[in-house]
């Protein structure tokens, strides 16, 4: 076959539409991550009766830009005894895995532009949530490689902590999710949202499952009270102790992107995704049209995510860090049995329901 034919076979409109969507999502996550740092400092300040950054621009809203510029202009230091390739690969991988989760999240319903129905999901993978889990477990490599390549005891300790923590909490997370999957019967994130649009949100069906998922999400994103990998007063920064300049920026950014996207995943799984609560979508489409509805849905979804980001910060500035044995106890002895219990009860109830509530 000629090369020309291959190009003709490509659906160029789809290609461009997805490309634009990818750029928007990537830029959006970066922007949100930037302003999460600002929000974090502001939230911390308000909770501690302080003012927070207020010098750069009105109310300090240019602070993240100033921080970013500062990070770019810092000297790039690669330690002599580090493995150079891995040292650079670490933050890249952390950033990459953080970004990749955004690909399967449905940011809204369809919009109608240029005579095409454009889905606001980059890839409606039918195993969407499995993909998310796969990427999340890859995420530990960014930290592991970075900590290992630094050739520094504290970095390595931080990396080991991160690895064992993420592995332990992924179990409970996965099992709490299985209970949810038994209810929804699908792995596609978009389908889950569509189900929640017509019926109750999943949080009402799986409150315990959500609680476990939430706690595990805290552990997976290395947020306080589970921020042992970067416990700055024990490990002088943990896995990113040796990093400077934008490589450090990548690690810090990936943490905030992780926070944003895990908020997005939780909103999708348990809080109806882009579903607007208390509103009948069919009526709304009739009144304002498809495109406006999609924008409205996207906004509602974004607000839900912001609530989660606020929750992450709120907890961070309330709860002190766990001790490592407490962390492991919580993961293996409490959350895992609880998740199993939740799964069994859910399974039993589903069976009962199929049997029309007869034993």
């Amino acid at each position, binding site marked *: 076959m000629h090369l020309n034919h291959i190009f003709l076979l490509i659906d160029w409109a789809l290609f461009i539409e997805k490309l634009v969507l990818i750029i928007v999502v990537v830029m959006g996550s970066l922007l949100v991550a930037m302003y999460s740092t600002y929000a974090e400092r502001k939230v911390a300040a308000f*909770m501690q*009766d302080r003012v927070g950054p207020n010098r750069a621009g009105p109310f300090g809203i240019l602070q993240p830009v100033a921080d970013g510029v500062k990070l770019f202009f810092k000297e790039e230091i690669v330690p002599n005894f580090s493995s150079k390739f891995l040292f650079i690969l670490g933050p890249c991988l952390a950033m990459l895995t953080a970004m990749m989760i955004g690909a399967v999240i449905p940011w809204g319903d369809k919009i109608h532009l240029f005579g095409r129905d454009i889905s606001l999901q980059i890839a409606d993978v039918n195993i969407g949530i499995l993909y998310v889990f796969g990427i999340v477990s890859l995420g530990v490599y960014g930290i592991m490689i970075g900590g290992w390549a630094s050739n520094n005891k504290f970095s390595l300790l931080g990396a080991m902590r991160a690895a064992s923590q993420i592995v332990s909490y992924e179990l409970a997370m996965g099992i709490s999710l299985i209970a949810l999957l038994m209810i929804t019967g699908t792995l596609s994130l978009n389908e889950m949202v569509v189900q929640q649009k017509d019926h109750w949100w999943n949080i009402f069906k799986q409150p315990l499952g959500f609680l476990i998922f939430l706690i595990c999400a805290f552990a997976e994103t290395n947020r306080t009270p589970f921020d042992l990998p970067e416990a700055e007063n024990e490990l002088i920064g943990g896995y990113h102790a040796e990093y400077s300049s934008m490589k450090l920026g990548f690690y810090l950014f990936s943490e905030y992107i992780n926070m944003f996207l895990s908020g997005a995943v939780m909103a999708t799984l348990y809080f109806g995704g882009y579903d607007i609560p208390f509103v009948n979508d069919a009526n709304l489409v009739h009144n304002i049209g498809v495109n406006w509805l999609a924008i409205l849905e996207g906004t509602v979804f974004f607000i839900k995510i912001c609530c989660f980001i606020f929750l992450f910060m709120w907890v961070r500035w*309330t709860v002190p860090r766990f001790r490592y044995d407490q962390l492991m106890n919580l993961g293996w002895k409490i959350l895992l049995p609880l998740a199993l219990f939740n799964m069994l009860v859910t399974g039993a109830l589903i069976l009962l329901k199929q049997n029309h509530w007869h034993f």
Partner: protein
Amino acid sequence: MQALTNRIKPVSRKPMSIWERMYLPAIFKGMTITFSHMFKKVPTIRYPEKTRPFSPVFRGLQILNRDEEGRENCTACGLCAVACPAEAITMEAAERKPGEEHLYREEKYAAKYEINMLRCIFCGLCEEACPKDAVYLSETFAPANYQRKGFIYGKENLLIPHPKEDPEGFAKARGSRAAHPEGHGNEH
């Protein structure tokens, strides 16, 4: 062992109850506390724009005073330098020439008057020693400089603005002294 004070509080070592071991209630309690703090008024004073009012006896950087016509009060008697416990003050006297009456109030004046602000301990003894009300401690503080020599303040730094040419600067440098002409009250 006998306690030295009666403020000892015995630590409770009893095992936690189920409710306490669940952690979550305690975490929620803590979270309500932190959330309530979000709406509290912050006590911060936004410094460069706003400053805290000083107490009337505040002792800041020294100022060399002028009288109402703008003549320098200092006669270079050296009492301040003698009184200074940190030995921060040096001066050189000079005699007033005819025609300089509008510059200096008396026949002798300080041709050079230096205070090393790094040595100065801002005790205010120079102000107490001065018989001519020529030196006093203002409400200016926190000087910044890139070099140590920048902290040796000469007459050009110390002299108060001219009351006729720059009345605003004069009033500002006088500070609360304008309201209390007798001074800061520390001479009583």
